[in-house]
């Protein structure tokens, strides 16, 4: 029961984050673009479809599975899209008394999803890849809202408060669990699967109740939401100002001067080119709206797809996993996680700037390729993340050697040597503070790539992977 409960709780969390972005997206599309009749039930119907597809294709080779998933997702998105266009659309404003209940329901769903997302984020190892995976849709939604706010003439609908609340709840949930003291006290509760599910549910219901109360009753809650609205409008105005400022930087032909005219009335300032571009003819505007909706819906489909895959993976993987499987633990304090995140973000920024500089033919003194010790640490972090994803998370009190012994007990025999080499080099880097030879680090990274691919290729097959399969994976590569 514990395993099933864990799988269910994690699936709820995984679904929660997707649901939060989706609900915000639906709200946005409905209120700004004018698609009043988005059949949410049909869109959500993709879940059993994806589930069935995964079950049907789980014996295929990985590449075939990926191709099947991609084709199925595209097909489903296309059918949904055509049905949407043929369905009862219209130019309804979206935000009105008739939609108040719907907005409230969406807001409640968003809050529930936000809490689930916060809990999930708190349990993740903070790494750019994981965070990007969690935020990829949310950032797009935010950008979309800002863009529409900048191009539109009407104020944002009242539902924007729910979107703001969504982000607020998201970060509050993450911060609450990441804070060291609260996180430590909650650790047992989060590890208890039914406790986690009940906690997430209670938090979601509480958030929904708070937002509903704010929507239907005047008072300080309503005032708080209005303040959020004002902040939102301010952000939108700032974005608009940014566009105008960027537009001012664009070169434009100089206006012909009229000789002999001095001190006359100033000529009317030409509208910024970007704003002009945004004031498109009606046909183009509709086409642009169509493309925007298509883009959002494709993302929406992808969200649903990810949700279905996460649910299926957790449920199926959870049923197969051994008795030692546990959920991901909270590693370190919130401050520590934040510091790591910022450090990595800084390195990524440096790498991006260096890439841009290389692209433009210049070289900036921002450091060379990653140092050998950084390569080794990165490989070891990847190993930990991969092991956790495979149901072998490292206990916080485990040393690298203890974890290696743990891995050896459960990992295929062919990989033991590679794990030992990775661990030995990591120990030398971390505890001897001695940079390894560059050649050794590169060799280790190459070996890790082989091992990682081998493990990925072996996943999902019946029985433990063997050396022969490793050779196959290597050959395919």
């Amino acid at each position, binding site marked *: 029961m514990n395993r099933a409960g864990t799988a269910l709780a994690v699936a709820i969390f995984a679904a929660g984050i997707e649901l939060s972005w989706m609900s915000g997206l639906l709200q946005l599309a409905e209120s700004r673009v004018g698609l009043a009749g988005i059949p949410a039930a049909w869109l959500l119907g993709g879940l059993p479809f994806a589930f069935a597809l995964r079950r049907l294709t789980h014996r295929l080779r990985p590449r075939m599975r990926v191709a099947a998933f991609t084709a199925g997702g595209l097909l489903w998105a296309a059918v949904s899209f055509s049905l949407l266009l043929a369905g009862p659309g219209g130019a309804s404003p979206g935000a009105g008394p008739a939609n108040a209940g719907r907005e409230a329901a969406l807001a409640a769903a968003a809050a529930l999803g936000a809490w689930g997302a916060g809990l999930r984020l708190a349990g993740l190892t903070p790494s750019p890849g994981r965070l990007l995976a969690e935020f990829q849709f949310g950032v797009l939604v935010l950008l979309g809202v800002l863009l529409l706010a900048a191009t539109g003439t009407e104020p944002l609908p009242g539902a924007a408060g729910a979107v703001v609340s969504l982000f607020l709840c998201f970060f509050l949930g993450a911060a609450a669990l990441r804070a060291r003291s609260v996180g430590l006290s909650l650790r047992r509760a989060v590890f208890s699967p039914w406790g986690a599910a009940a906690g997430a549910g209670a938090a979601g219901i509480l958030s929904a109740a708070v937002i509903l109360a704010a929507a239907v009753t005047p008072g300080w809650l309503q005032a708080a939401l209005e303040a959020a609205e004002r902040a939102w409008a301010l952000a939108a105005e700032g974005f608009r100002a940014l566009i105008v400022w960027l537009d001012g930087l664009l070169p434009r032909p100089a206006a012909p001067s009229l000789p002999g005219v001095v001190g006359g009335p100033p000529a009317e300032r030409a509208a910024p080119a970007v704003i002009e571009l945004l004031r498109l003819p009606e046909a183009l505007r509709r086409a642009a709206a169509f493309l925007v909706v298509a883009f959002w819906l494709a993302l929406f489909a992808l969200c649903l797809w990810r949700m279905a895959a996460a649910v299926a993976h957790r449920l199926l993987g959870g049923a197969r996993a051994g008795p030692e499987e546990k959920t991901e633990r909270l590693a370190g304090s919130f401050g520590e996680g934040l510091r790591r995140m910022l450090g990595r973000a800084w390195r990524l920024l440096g790498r991006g700037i260096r890439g841009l500089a290389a692209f433009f033919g210049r070289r900036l003194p921002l450091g060379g390729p990653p140092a050998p010790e950084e390569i080794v640490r990165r490989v070891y972090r990847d190993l930990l993340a991969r092991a956790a994803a495979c149901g072998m998370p490292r206990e916080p*009190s485990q040393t*690298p050697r203890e974890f290696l012994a743990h891995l050896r007990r459960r990992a295929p025999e062919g990989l033991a040597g590679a794990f030992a080499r990775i661990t030995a080099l990591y120990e*030398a880097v*971390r*505890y*001897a503070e001695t940079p390894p030879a560059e050649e050794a680090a590169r060799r280790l990274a190459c070996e890790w790539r082989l091992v990682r691919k081998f493990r990925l290729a072996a996943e999902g097959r019946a029985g433990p992977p063997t050396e022969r399969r490793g050779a196959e994976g290597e050959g395919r590569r």
Partner: protein
Amino acid sequence: MSGNGGETAQVRGAAERFRDNLAGVFIGGAEAIELLFIALLCEGHVLIEDVPGVGKTLLARATARSLDGSFRRIQCTPDLLPSDVTGLHVFNQKTAEFEFRPGPLLANVVLVDEINRAMPRTQSCLLEGMQERQVTVDWRTVPLPRPFLLLATQNPLEWEGTFPLPEAQLDRFLLRLRIGYPDPEREAEVLGRYQRENPFEALKPVLGMEDLLRLQALVREVRVAMPVRGYIVALVQATRRHPEIRLGASTRAALGLQAAAQARAACHGRGFVLPDDVKALALPALAHRILARTEARLKNRREEDLLREILEELPAPVE
């Protein structure tokens, strides 16, 4: 000394020679032998505590014989006086001067057998020698020979006629060993080995004092990275915060644990300390220095159990 260079190889070789030498006499106690050698490398003192007849004194004597240094034995009794341990000044009628006649404490290896049978004032006279490597007799301070290693044994079961060691003295022991009963195969091997002759008689010294001093200097160069140092500090701090511990580990305990971890790393041929070294030595180095509360004792939770619990909860310094 940060790699697996020649220095660590020397320490490792010496550890293997020492272990092989003692393994012929003390059968089935590889861990205890390793801990003893670690204490030798740190110049720390060892308290061997166990029930009678498991080889405490034999282990201590075999250790002393494996070293090419001076060895003295003090058999503690309630009427043992401090001057019997440290030495005393006697009047030489020929020279008409007081002469210092050194006690058995002035040796490289001193075996204090059944230490808890000595009276507290006699036990206390060991404190200065253990910590400061010197003894003060009357008006004169006499340095102890280097290296100086004190091996003490005690039987934890007997209470009558014994004087439990005070915390201050326990804190001066780097490690506390518990040998335990051997498993049936090992016990049968002991019977076979000791049937005709005593292998102790054939024991030869394998490590000179000069070599030992050189190895001690090498061990002090073993690298302790900041994360590992932080781990030691966190461990010691955790013993002070634990609700079931009345007296946590001291700073001297942290120093001792670090030194012992360095020695263990060198014995394993490493030039740097791993968290595993700290974990492996946490119980022998800390368990005798902390005191569990009465509530914990009533629940039959010993200091070792509490330390194990702390080690299971304490995050290791990994990514």
